[in-house]
């Protein structure tokens, strides 16, 4: 009797297995039906909060690790900054003892672009300064990214026309930061080029270029762009160096006029930028006529 029951049990086990196998194989032939999708959604709804918590734990762990790394970097940078400050003091002391002129801090007057004269791209800008300093012709104009141009015409002490670097007449003396090789920056209507770079001088793609200060109007050390192509031919006197400017001339809104050149470093940026004056009410309102962003198409 017991043997018979055991035999039936064995047959039952085999039947269960067969049923499971058959159903599994049958399920493999299913297209993804609405029922399957509902079942999957139901299971995912159960699992999702757990996955969410799991991801949260992951994020917390990585956040903690990143935070520790950043703290270490911050500490290192603070130490570096202290060292730089110390070296700067020493340099200024040495310069003073050697008879150099006492160094002044540079000064930037914030200004708002109220009009852009556009050829293919903007070539001239009308700006309104908020600074105390009076604007003068040939004062350099910069943005946070680099040199923008120079004041070409002063309309009143706070209003001026700026010749952008993209104007074809514009020429600025620039140098390769790595080697000190100088040249003249010009724009040909499509791209920036640096002229008068003799053959054999080392200029490489990726080289950063700053203003050289040789022209006398623009101080040395303002970023101008980086080299994107160098073409050198033995039959030519000079190399053709193509440059890319970091400044987006089509999106100029805020610029700074360098009203007093000098080292830009200071304990904080506010000490450098002249923020005594506040923008006039009409300048603060972007909807005011002739205000921020008004463009004038030039017939050029």
């Amino acid at each position, binding site marked *: 009797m017991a043997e018979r029951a055991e035999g039936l*049990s064995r047959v*039952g*086990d085999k039947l*269960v*297995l067969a049923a*499971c*196998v058959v*159903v*599994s*194989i*049958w*399920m*493999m032939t*299913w297209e*993804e039906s609405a029922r*399957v*999708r509902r*079942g*999957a959604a139901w*299971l*995912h709804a*159960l*699992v999702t909060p*757990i*996955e969410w*918590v*799991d991801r949260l734990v992951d994020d917390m762990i990585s956040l903690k690790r990143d935070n520790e790394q950043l703290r270490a970097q911050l500490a290192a940078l603070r130490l570096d900054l202290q060292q730089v400050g110390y070296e700067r003091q020493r340099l200024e002391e040495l310069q003073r003892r050697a008879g150099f002129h006492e160094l002044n801090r540079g000064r930037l007057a914030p200004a708002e672009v109220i009009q852009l004269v556009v050829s293919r791209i903007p070539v001239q800008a009308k700006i309104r300064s908020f600074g105390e300093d009076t604007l003068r012709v040939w004062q350099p104009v910069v943005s946070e990214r680099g040199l923008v141009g120079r004041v070409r015409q002063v309309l009143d002490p706070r209003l001026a026309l700026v010749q952008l670097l993209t104007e074809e007449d514009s020429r600025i003396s620039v140098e390769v930061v790595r080697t000190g090789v100088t040249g003249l920056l010009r724009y040909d209507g499509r791209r920036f080029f640096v002229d008068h770079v003799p053959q054999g001088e080392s200029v490489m793609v990726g080289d950063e270029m700053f203003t050289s200060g040789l022209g006398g109007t623009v101080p040395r050390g303002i970023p101008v762009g980086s080299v994107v192509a160098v073409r050198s031919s033995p039959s030519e006197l000079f190399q053709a160096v193509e440059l890319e400017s970091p400044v987006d001339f089509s999106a100029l809104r805020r610029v700074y006029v360098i009203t007093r050149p000098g080292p830009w470093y200071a304990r904080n940026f506010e000490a450098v930028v002249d923020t005594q004056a506040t923008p006039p009410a009409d300048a603060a309102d972007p909807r005011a006529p002739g205000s921020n962003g008004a463009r004038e198409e030039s017939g050029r």
Partner: protein
Amino acid sequence: MTGLRLVVAVFLTLVVQLSLVRRVAIFGVQPDLAILLLVLLAGRRGPGSGALLGFAIGLLQDLLVPETLGMNALAKSVVGWAMGKLSRQLAMDSVVLYLSLVVIAVLAHDLIYLVCLTRLDVGRLVMVYLTNSLPSALYTGLFAAVIGGIAIVLQQSILPRGGERGMLGRG
């Protein structure tokens, strides 16, 4: 183990498999807790229940990735049935034997699953089997040994005292 406990155990195992297990992955190889649970339960309940449990666990896993619907269910049904059968025929008092069964179960499961998944693409099957299934089987065996070791230590440190209390209570 009652039905409710069984459901909770299966659900917890799947949750741990989806979340915590990847934290102990070594070079992307993870232990297969679902198989571990299946071997354990099938060994206690026999081949029929093993097949049914395997089918249920596999179906839940398949529902998480509906493209593989039926594959896990099939592989786990067969493995559950086989483990139930083997546990009746073998004396399961040896730890080494139990761990070997776990490794064999993972290997057998992955073989069936990969045959279905690759549709008998032998090259792909062999590559995945060697690079993933084999290490996973060994890792699952190792994991089972560690978990088993912890369970034995806990059992020895907690249960005797509980037993004494029980006897005292009855006395």
